[in-house]
């Protein structure tokens, strides 16, 4: 095992898969010499050249479409959408094309592309550079959605995504890029669709993904001292969702709080909550609760941004209230 930045783990996954499979290539804005806005792909152009580490003009919908077309002929493109906010521009090619082509053309063609895209706030970038929109993609049949929380998973899941024969939206986190974690020496893959129990607990299940896993862990550690024992589950993949792992935990604890960085209404937590209720109703001792961003564009100013986004403190407040009423 080595300590490694989340961003470097992603870079290593790309490099290894490009070594392994000549069909894999990267495209997006500033991915070559500049290494992407967050320097995730820095250095790869030296290793693989500009043909395979390909700068594009600014045209999200069409360079995703280019990836789709290339994938239909056997390539395995990894597309970089510089900020997740810009994925709004590519919704047509993702939703009407990438996600549907295999099914709607009768299985004749497939679209093995990965769309890497950093989400989230916390850097005072403001309304068009801070969104977490991944909930949308859960609503699109034919797409997989991955959102790793650690360097280990970032590498292993990205490798799984690149080897997958389906389009995968791969949600990264701007704030996690600079966090370190342990990464195995050897080649490994973290299969898509398997959640991870981060921490065992008795009274309540905290369900999170991406950056919010860390906040949930922090909350759990603090709550432990207050005598509230939280199990923490990292969803890792939003689609397919690992309902089994969620249900196993909720059946045990009888309580669940879902934590996400996106806006509350219509978010990932809504779906998780609905599935918990449908599948674990008889075991629930308390209503499923959600902790999420307020329903507002993520504002720029630090104080406002902190007010809008969820964090460990807000998770703790929700859990305390829940335990008070339903403990």
């Amino acid at each position, binding site marked *: 095992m080595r300590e490694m930045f989340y961003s470097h783990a992603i870079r290593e996954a790309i490099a290894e898969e490009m070594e392994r499979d000549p069909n894999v290539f990267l495209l997006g804005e500033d991915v070559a010499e500049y290494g992407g806005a967050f320097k995730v792909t820095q250095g790869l152009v030296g290793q693989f050249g500009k043909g395979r580490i390909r700068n594009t003009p600014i045209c999200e*919908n069409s360079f995703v479409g*280019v990836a*789709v*077309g290339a994938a*239909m*002929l056997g390539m395995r493109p990894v597309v970089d959408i510089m900020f997740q906010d810009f994925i709004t521009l590519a919704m047509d090619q993702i939703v009407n094309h990438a996600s549907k082509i295999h099914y*709607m053309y009768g299985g004749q063609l*497939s679209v093995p592309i990965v769309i890497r895209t950093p989400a989230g706030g916390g850097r005072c970038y403001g309304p068009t550079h801070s969104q977490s929109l991944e909930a949308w993609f859960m609503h699109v049949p034919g797409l997989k959605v991955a959102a790793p929380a650690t360097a280990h998973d970032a590498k292993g899941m990205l490798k799984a995504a690149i080897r997958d024969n389906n389009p995968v939206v791969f949600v990264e986190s701007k704030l996690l890029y600079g966090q370190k974690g342990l990464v195995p020496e050897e080649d490994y893959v973290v299969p898509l669709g398997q959640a991870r129990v981060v921490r065992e607990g008795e009274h309540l299940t905290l369900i999170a993904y991406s950056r919010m896993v860390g906040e949930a862990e922090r909350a759990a550690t603090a709550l432990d001292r207050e005598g509230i024992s939280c199990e923490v589950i990292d969803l890792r993949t939003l689609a397919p969702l690992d309902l089994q792992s969620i249900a196993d935990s909720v059946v045990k604890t009888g309580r669940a709080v879902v934590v996400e960085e996106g806006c509350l209404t219509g978010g990932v937590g809504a779906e998780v909550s609905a599935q918990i209720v449908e599948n674990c109703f008889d075991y629930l001792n308390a209503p499923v609760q959600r902790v999420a961003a307020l329903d507002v564009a993520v504002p720029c100013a630090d104080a406002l941004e902190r007010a809008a986004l969820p964090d460990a403190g807000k998770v703790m407040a929700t859990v305390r209230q829940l335990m008070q009423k339903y403990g």
Partner: protein
Amino acid sequence: MDDKQLLADYRRMLLIRRFEEKLDSLFTSGVIKGTSHLYAGQEAVAVGVCAALRSNDFMTSTHRGHGHLLAKGADPKRVMAELFGKSTGYSKGRGGSQHTACAAVGFLGSNGITGGGIPIATGAALAVQMTASAPLTKDGHAGRNRAHPDAVVVCFFGEGGASIGMFHESLNMAGIWKLPIIYVCENNLYAMSVPLHEESAVQDIAHRAESYGMPGVIVDGCDYFAVARAVAEAAARARAGEGPSLLEAKTYRYYGHSKSDKREYRTREEEASWKNRDPILLLGTKLLETDVLTKDAQLQALHEVDAEVEAAVEFADNSPEPDPAAVLDEVFA
């Protein structure tokens, strides 16, 4: 082009025409559900384009895709079955008219989104180029749709589709990367009901090629030979690594935009004037003049394609409905 190909292409144009005429009556009589956009009137474009292509070249299409499919060599039976929503259709009944692919002949799909096929074609051309410049050692997923290193890609769209951002974005990339692709704009003067001058401030789409550093050529879309010549040139350019071209074929669709269209936005006179230069009539006359075709052979061709269309309808009609229990099959690859 040798006589054999000329005859085959004449027959192919006839086949498309009769196929669409048949479809029109099937829709009108309610046998087929959904919607459909008929290609009749534009046959010289699809067939002229394919006359200059190789069988392993690729193609993307639009909502108006039957002509492109048949020209590229798809089986009329399975196209018809798709329109009937049957399990023997190329898309197993899931796609219908606007969502039919035929990977076996390099046909990468008709497309319900105006302009949606433009970036996809561009990506296919990138795959071809990458395959050519660095022969790949491993097969792609399933290896089924591998690009051939000397292939070209043809990308069809209407002049209406030339308004959408994907046109600009894609041609820009193709121009920068010098991709082996031919963009073919079928300018039939209307996007649904909207006439050219309400879609574009300029009347010739081909001139936009200059914005992307590629040649732009206007051809008479009623003239099979003109189309084939222009495509042959563009294809040679593409195969020689000289990059993309934009072709604009001036053409006309005979039917309404879709089955519900009463064509109130254009005159019967305008329609008649275009029908005077019917592409099949033009090619037929030329072939008769040059003795490639005889009156007898012409009549026989008509009988044959009608039989082929009837056989397609029969095949489609007799094919099984898709199994509702299998509705979730193949959502993932």
